[in-house]
């Protein structure tokens, strides 16, 4: 049991920080520009694929730097030549633009790298066991992922809170018109934040693509989860995004470990014998194992938060 708890904690910490890398950029973009960027997880996918391609040429370490740079440039271009153009048609058009973009990016990835996943490997220099605890081993690469994502969180926090650029970004989160009136180039800042956010998603792709899997469906798998994170955490709140990322990954990781269903509970308690005679969907509901609910829980949380507490955990204003 202790083994299960320890490793579930460690794994969910790693996965949660990866989610945070993805959602931190998204939450800034969302609260600053009001754009629900459907293509954000697609930048994560581009990061993974570009890193795979670059690492076959020059190895993993240069790819760790090059791939996020490329993704960031793509993101900035998308903002400059796409989003800014549709901005005049209103919020709906912007949303649909990113929705279509996510669709096209997936197809382009299929076009270039094929429908099956690519063999993006963990670098051999990190392919060893960091430590053994009880009977399970903890791979060094997971620790590396954790180090990278935590240090990015610290740098990001420092930049946002302590530097002048961060100050202006924070101001533009809530009052973009006022910041513009004070003489700052708000469109350029939008481009910067969009590019920067995409680059962060790219980093997540580089370090997550080889640990998880690099395939065309990877963007769609995480696409909605990151929305859950920013809504649950609260718009524009970096700490909120951190807490929500960890919360969701804890939920998902721990759910997988429990192989029980309501039926087992009813049987164990030996009350309500009529329940075991339930038929149809009710019978299905009784037999759903906790482990199966992992994929459903985040969306349940999303709907609940939006209906009950639209501000999210740490947000200042409503979604």
């Amino acid at each position: 049991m202790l083994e299960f708890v320890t490793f579930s904690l460690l794994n969910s910490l790693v996965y949660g920080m990866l989610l945070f890398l993805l959602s931190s950029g998204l939450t800034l973009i969302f609260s600053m520009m009001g754009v629900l960027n459907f293509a954000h997880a697609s930048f994560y996918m581009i990061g993974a694929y570009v890193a795979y391609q670059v690492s076959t040429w020059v190895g993993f370490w240069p790819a760790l730097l090059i791939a996020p740079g490329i993704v960031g440039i793509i993101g900035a271009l998308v903002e400059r030549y796409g989003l800014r153009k549709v901005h005049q048609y209103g919020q709906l058009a912007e949303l649909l633009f990113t929705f279509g973009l996510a669709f096209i990016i997936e197809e382009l990835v299929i076009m270039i790298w094929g429908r099956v996943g690519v063999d993006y490997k963990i670098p051999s220099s990190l392919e060893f066991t960091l430590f053994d605890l009880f009977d399970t081993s903890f791979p060094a690469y997971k620790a590396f992922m954790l180090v990278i994502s935590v240090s990015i969180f610290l740098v990001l926090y420092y930049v946002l809170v302590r530097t002048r650029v961060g100050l202006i970004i924070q101001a533009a989160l809530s009052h973009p018109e006022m910041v513009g009136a004070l003489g700052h180039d708000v469109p350029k800042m939008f481009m910067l934040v969009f590019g920067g956010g995409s680059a962060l998603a790219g980093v997540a792709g580089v370090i997550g693509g080889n640990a998880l899997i690099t395939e065309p469906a990877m963007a769609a798998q995480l696409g909605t989860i990151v929305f859950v994170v920013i809504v649950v955490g609260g718009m524009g709140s970096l700490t909120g995004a951190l807490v929500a990322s960890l919360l969701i990954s804890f939920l998902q990781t721990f759910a997988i470990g429990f192989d029980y269903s309501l039926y087992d509970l009813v049987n164990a308690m030996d009350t309500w014998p009529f329940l075991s005679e339930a038929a149809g969907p009710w019978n299905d509901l009784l037999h759903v194992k906790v482990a199966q609910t992992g994929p459903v829980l985040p969306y349940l949380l999303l709907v609940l938060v939006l209906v009950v507490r639209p501000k999210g955990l740490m947000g200042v204003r409503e979604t």
Partner: protein
Amino acid sequence: MSSSIQNPGPSKIPCYGIWCVFALTIMLLPFFFTSRFSISLFSQIGISCVFALSYNMLLGQGGMLSFGHAVFMGLGGFIAVHALNLISENTLPVPLELLPLIGGLGGAFFGSIFGYLCCRREGTPFALITLGIVELFASGALMFPSFFGGEEGVSGNRMIKNTLTGFDFGSEIEVYFLIGSWTFLCVLCMYLQTQTPLGRLANAVRDNPIRASFIGYNPSHVRFLQFVLSGFFAGTAGGLFIIRYEIIAYDALGLVPSGNVLFMTYIGGVGHFMGPILGAILISILQLVLIHYTEAWQLYFGLLFMAMVLWAPGGLSWLLIVHQPVWKAGLMSKLLPSYLQALATGLIFFLGLIIFIEINYHLSLSIEPGAPLELFGLVMDGHSVVPWSTAISCLILGLWLFRHSVKMVAAQWDAVMVIITKKTLER
């Protein structure tokens, strides 16, 4: 209050004309296009029309962007297929012709449950809640195999004895006429709904919810009613789907079909009642035809959608409507030459794009990437320079020429507009 909302629409007689033409078209189509393929295509178009129009009740009429509309069509379909199985076991005395109605009631039932959750919010939160709901169903459907049938879905058999008309619906054409009549009925009802006080109020809530509540209507209540009705018609489309395909699986509830109906409606145009019909026709044809010719059909589909978002946000119906005054003034002949030029140059660009995309798909997806690719009767070798250079030069040349001709179109358009304004001023 409701009596003060009056229909300022055009006189009734031409309206009747349009509906007669619509009914006649549905009736006569299978006699002109008799092949099995085209009749099944028409059935598919009918289902898509109902689905897209029901979606536009939310997006176009009510200003509610939903990412989960396929949930209602899917649930309607599942309820209809279970009903169909009950009918064939003789436990449910309903004729087959009324099966879509059962699907519709199912859609309305679930619409009222989820509408209760969604409709208190508008804009982005609304869209996010629908996104949450669709993902809930997509990931949760497999947990309930007795209703959703697991991976393989639930199937039924439409050839049952209990029918009103005496047809046994064994042939494609009988199914087409059943779907066609339901399509006509649903389209008519949805059009009439836009003329009702509720339909008008939905427009008011879309344009300015605060003002709507000032004159005494609760915006979330209006949105809720609109949502339930929209769920009803989506469920009806699900029932029609069951009659046509006799099987439905959990992937009918997912984000992909929900995005699909969004594409259809938006490409057709949300601002006009005809828009979603145009979109449904175009996209259904594209889907069924392109899928035979190219692996990349989804990419073309996405590119078309993006082009519409960037350059024609009003959709196809908007493109038609802005030409109405030009057509009436008899000035189309002034625009046509520049349009033809833009079309020709656009085709050069498009040709380059097609070659580029097809070669790439061929190299990364086909079983034999080394084998030459046949395109428009031409044979190309993906590893030689010729097709690549052709594609890239077509792309660059086409883009350059197209930008030039777009300027021409704009200049001509301005000139025509000046003439029309002068004419109206003279009157």
